[in-house]
């Protein structure tokens, strides 16, 4: 009879005691007024708690706590964040695409600068050679001329620079800028003190605008000009005055008979 525990009393007060135990507890309570008072106390506490806070559960639920509305907002937010993600992807794609297509603009060096650089490069490489400085020697200058003329699809005579003290060593065919026929001819001249100059010739650039340029490049002097038929760069390491004289001779001989010749003469 007195095997009633505190937990059982509490469960009884909370109305959570299994039916099987309820009779025993009720019998116990009948004999123990203190225990009965305890039950009443617990129930009064419960009543007080419900009186205090119960009304909050009966209040009208504000709109912001409506599950359907919250679900719609969440879905909307999610859609919007997908939208942002998609927009970000599109923007990145546009940026990459624009960057890709803008490449030519970004490394747009003028064609002449590229040709001069190629000419100086070729000059540096081959003037240092002794046995293989040229592909075809000057002893076969007629063949050299017709061969290079055919390859460049133009008429290329070998300029005579004996007046400047230079004789032809020979020439070679080189790969060139795609914009200027993809091929280039290099002619090499040498003077008595074995100083060398090279002439780098390509067919005309698209447009074939006449141009004239003097550049000092990696320790070498380069005279560049272009007309409707060819571009030509004279490269050497001689003093500037001597280079100008050479370039003038080369220019006048290579442009002989060209329509636009008059513009640069003198």
């Amino acid at each position: 009879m007195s095997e009633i525990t505190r937990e059982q009393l509490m469960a009884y007060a909370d109305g959570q005691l299994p039916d099987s135990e309820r009779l025993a507890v009720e019998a116990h309570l009948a004999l123990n007024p203190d225990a009965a008072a305890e039950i009443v106390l617990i129930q009064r506490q419960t009543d007080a708690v419900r009186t205090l806070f119960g009304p909050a559960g009966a209040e009208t639920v504000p709109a912001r706590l409506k599950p359907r509305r919250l679900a719609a907002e969440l879905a909307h937010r999610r859609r919007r964040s997908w939208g942002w993600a998609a927009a970000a992807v599109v923007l990145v794609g546009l940026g990459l695409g624009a960057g890709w297509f803008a490449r030519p603009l970004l490394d747009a060096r003028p064609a002449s600068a590229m040709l001069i650089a190629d000419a100086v490069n070729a000059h540096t490489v081959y003037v240092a050679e002794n046995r293989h400085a040229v592909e075809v020697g000057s002893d076969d200058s007629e063949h050299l001329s017709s061969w290079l003329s055919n390859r460049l699809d133009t008429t290329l005579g070998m300029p005579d620079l004996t007046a400047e003290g230079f004789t032809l060593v020979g020439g070679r065919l080189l790969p060139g800028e795609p914009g200027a026929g993809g091929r280039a001819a290099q002619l090499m001249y040498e003077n008595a003190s074995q100083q060398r100059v090279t002439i780098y010739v390509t067919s005309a650039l698209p447009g074939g605008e006449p141009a004239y340029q003097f550049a000092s490049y990696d320790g070498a002097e380069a005279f560049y000009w272009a007309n409707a038929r060819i571009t030509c760069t004279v490269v050497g390491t001689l003093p500037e005055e001597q280079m100008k004289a050479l370039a003038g001779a080369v220019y006048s001989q290579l442009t002989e008979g060209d329509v636009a010749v008059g513009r640069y003469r003198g």
Partner: protein
Amino acid sequence: MDQFLDQVEACVPALRRYARALTRNADLADDLVQDCLERAISRRGLFRPTGPVRAWLFTILLNLHRNALRASHRRGEIVDIDTVPEPAVPASQPGHVALAEMARAIDTLPLEQKEALLLVALEGLAYQEAADILTIPIGTLMSRLGRARAALRVLTGTPGEPYLRTVK
């Protein structure tokens, strides 16, 4: 899905009531409930356990509340108890327990006792469901309840612990 939202909606009044009792602040309580609902709705399906929706919602609410308390403790923020509305009907009502005194007494309870007491006394949940919500064994729940009620009895000045003599 719509059925799920219906089930959630049916729980909202209880969640608000419980949150109000925990926080003693109507705005904080509703914020808590809103967070709880958003979390539940955004996680339905993938993360929802198979049990009853109500227990799951209460578990979420309790976790959010504990996190918020931890965060506010870290910030040193104080939730003002005096902002709590005094009960509209003072004293004299259920027995001789003064309601205001009871409200203050509940506030002084350790959180784990308060959580347990309110689940059972206020929400009228079965011990087992309350224990599941708090993820504790039912014995632990009952001992927390017992300690909470004993503390309330002392704090509200109700005499003695008469039934202790009856326990063997």
